[in-house]
């Protein structure tokens, strides 16, 4: 029995140790050399990696220190709110009286020279639009802007362009009450001021309503408005405005003899009980991080009864867009209006403009760096409006088209000299040429 057990043990040991003995055969000298080479290579690679890590760590420390320094500088600026305007400025003087710059006078002024071939006019002109801002609290602002303009009759015309209280109700809604610029389209609210408008003239549909344009520039009433970021994405947002107002009024509203093409009249005291209402919605679809420029597309409407018996409607709607990428800017609008007339066909008018501008700042040539080239095509369709219909009114007859070319020279971001050439033509329109020179100062 003992022998049997020993035999089994020996057999087991042989089976267990046998293969190991085979595997443990000594490596050849070539294999050893190869392994040594590989080890040397790995050591070198390791040393190179360590050196690289040290270099990166050193660079990281430099970056961290630089960042810390920048943060400290930024903190100091944020803390101090460093004043960078010259001491003793108008702001300082106003500060003494009103405190903490709650009250500010800003706005713009312009000097012009206009030459028109058909009318034979060649005249200088001027206009001044101060904008008074009073910040009552961080959520309440009062703003007013009188427009002071020289009339061709020799008189000085003063018109209250807007006077409104703005109350921020929450992050998404602001209440506005008073006389406000009509929140319709892009031109009236955003680019009408002379230092912003890249041309000396307005596009044909946006000549002011009392001068034959398609819309009044302001109205009295109340509105809610705001902007909301979408999808938590910087640059992507939607904005809205909804308003109720006195509504549209025309020069013939109370006369009982309405005519096609009659200009608007400011509806300071509502001529009827019916109110005007309207709104605008705008969308910014391109994220800032995409670096593909900024695009805004919008849609607007403005409606209301315009006669003293509240039976006849005025309705307008429009679409607009604006796109900006570096030195390039393109914008355009289309709008359409319809005014019901008693016993006559509807006064149906529509208009458009398309404008492109390009700054030459990339040329790197000093005088041209501040030059911007502008071109605009605009037009009006005045259905059923013949020259005879507009005798004695400001409205333009026919279906005019206008090509305008401009060269702007920007002395500062808000001081510009403009030279503009206009060519007007179209159906039932007498061709005309105009040259405009303007110096506009935003302050």
């Amino acid at each position, binding site marked *: 029995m003992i022998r049997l057990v020993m035999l089994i043990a020996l057999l087991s040991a042989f089976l267990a140790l046998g293969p190991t003995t085979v595997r443990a055969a000594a490596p050849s000298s070539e294999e050893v050399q190869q392994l040594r080479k590989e080890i040397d290579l790995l050591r070198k690679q390791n040393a190179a990696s360590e050196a690289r890590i040290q270099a990166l760590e050193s660079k990281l420390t430099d970056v961290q220190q630089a960042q810390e320094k920048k943060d400290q500088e930024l903190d100091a600026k944020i803390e101090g709110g460093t004043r960078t305007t010259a001491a003793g400025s108008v702001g300082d003087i106003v500060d003494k009286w009103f405190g903490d710059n709650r009250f500010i006078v800003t706005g713009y002024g312009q000097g012009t020279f206009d030459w028109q071939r058909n009318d034979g006019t060649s005249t200088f002109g001027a206009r001044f639009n101060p904008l008074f801002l009073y910040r009552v609290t*961080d959520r309440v602002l009062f703003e007013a802007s009188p427009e002071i303009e020289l009339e061709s009759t020799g008189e000085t015309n003063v018109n209250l362009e807007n006077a409104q209280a703005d109350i921020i109700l929450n992050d998404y809604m602001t209440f506005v009450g008073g006389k406000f610029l009509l929140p319709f389209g892009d031109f009236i609210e955003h680019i009408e001021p002379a230092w912003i408008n890249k041309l000396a003239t307005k596009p044909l549909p946006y000549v002011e309503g009392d001068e034959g344009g398609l819309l009044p520039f302001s109205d009295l009433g109340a509105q809610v408005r705001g902007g909301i970021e979408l999808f938590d994405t910087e*640059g992507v947002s939607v904005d809205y405005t909804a308003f109720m107002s006195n509504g549209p009024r025309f020069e013939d509203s109370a006369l009982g003899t309405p005519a096609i093409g009659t200009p608007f009249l400011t509806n300071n005291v509502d001529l009827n009980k019916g109110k005007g209402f309207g709104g605008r919605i705008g969308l910014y679809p391109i994220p800032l991080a995409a670096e593909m420029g900024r695009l805004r597309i919008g849609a607007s409407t403005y409606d209301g009864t315009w006669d003293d018996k509240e039976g006849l409607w005025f309705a307008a709607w429009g679409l607009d867009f604006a796109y900006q990428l570096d030195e390039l800017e393109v914008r355009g609008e289309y709008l359409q209006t319809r005014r019901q007339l008693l016993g006559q066909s509807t006064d149906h008018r529509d208009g458009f403009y398309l404008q492109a501008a390009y700054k030459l700042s990339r040329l790197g040539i000093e005088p041209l760096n501040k030059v911007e080239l502008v071109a605009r095509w605009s037009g009006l369709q005045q259905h059923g409006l013949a020259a005879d219909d507009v005798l004695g009114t400001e409205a333009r007859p026919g279906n005019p088209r206008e090509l305008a070319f401009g060269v702007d020279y920007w002395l500062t971001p808000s001081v510009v000299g403009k030279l503009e050439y206009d060519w007007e033509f179209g159906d039932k329109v007498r061709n005309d040429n105009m040259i405009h020179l303007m110096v506009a100062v935003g302050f």
Partner: protein
Amino acid sequence: MRRTNVRALATLSILVGAVVLGRPEATAAEEASEQKAAASEQRALVRKGAREWSAYCGSCHNARPPGERSPAEWDTIMLHMRVRANLPAGDAQALLAYLRSR
């Protein structure tokens, strides 16, 4: 019984002392941490405003340089621009933080 009372009183005193003395240290640390977080948040807001300044302001008019106005003047102007341009609240705050910081 008396010895037990003394021990309980001593333990209570130590606990109260720890709470009273420990609290200011914890509050100071918390305050420092909160200040650091607020400063970091403010810096992030300024950087967001710097990114948006040219694109947002420039979509209607040339972006006005921050140095043109004092911080208090920017407070009033940005309130006006927030309403006129229908700026989302977060963007208006970021632009104001940037304009005030220069």
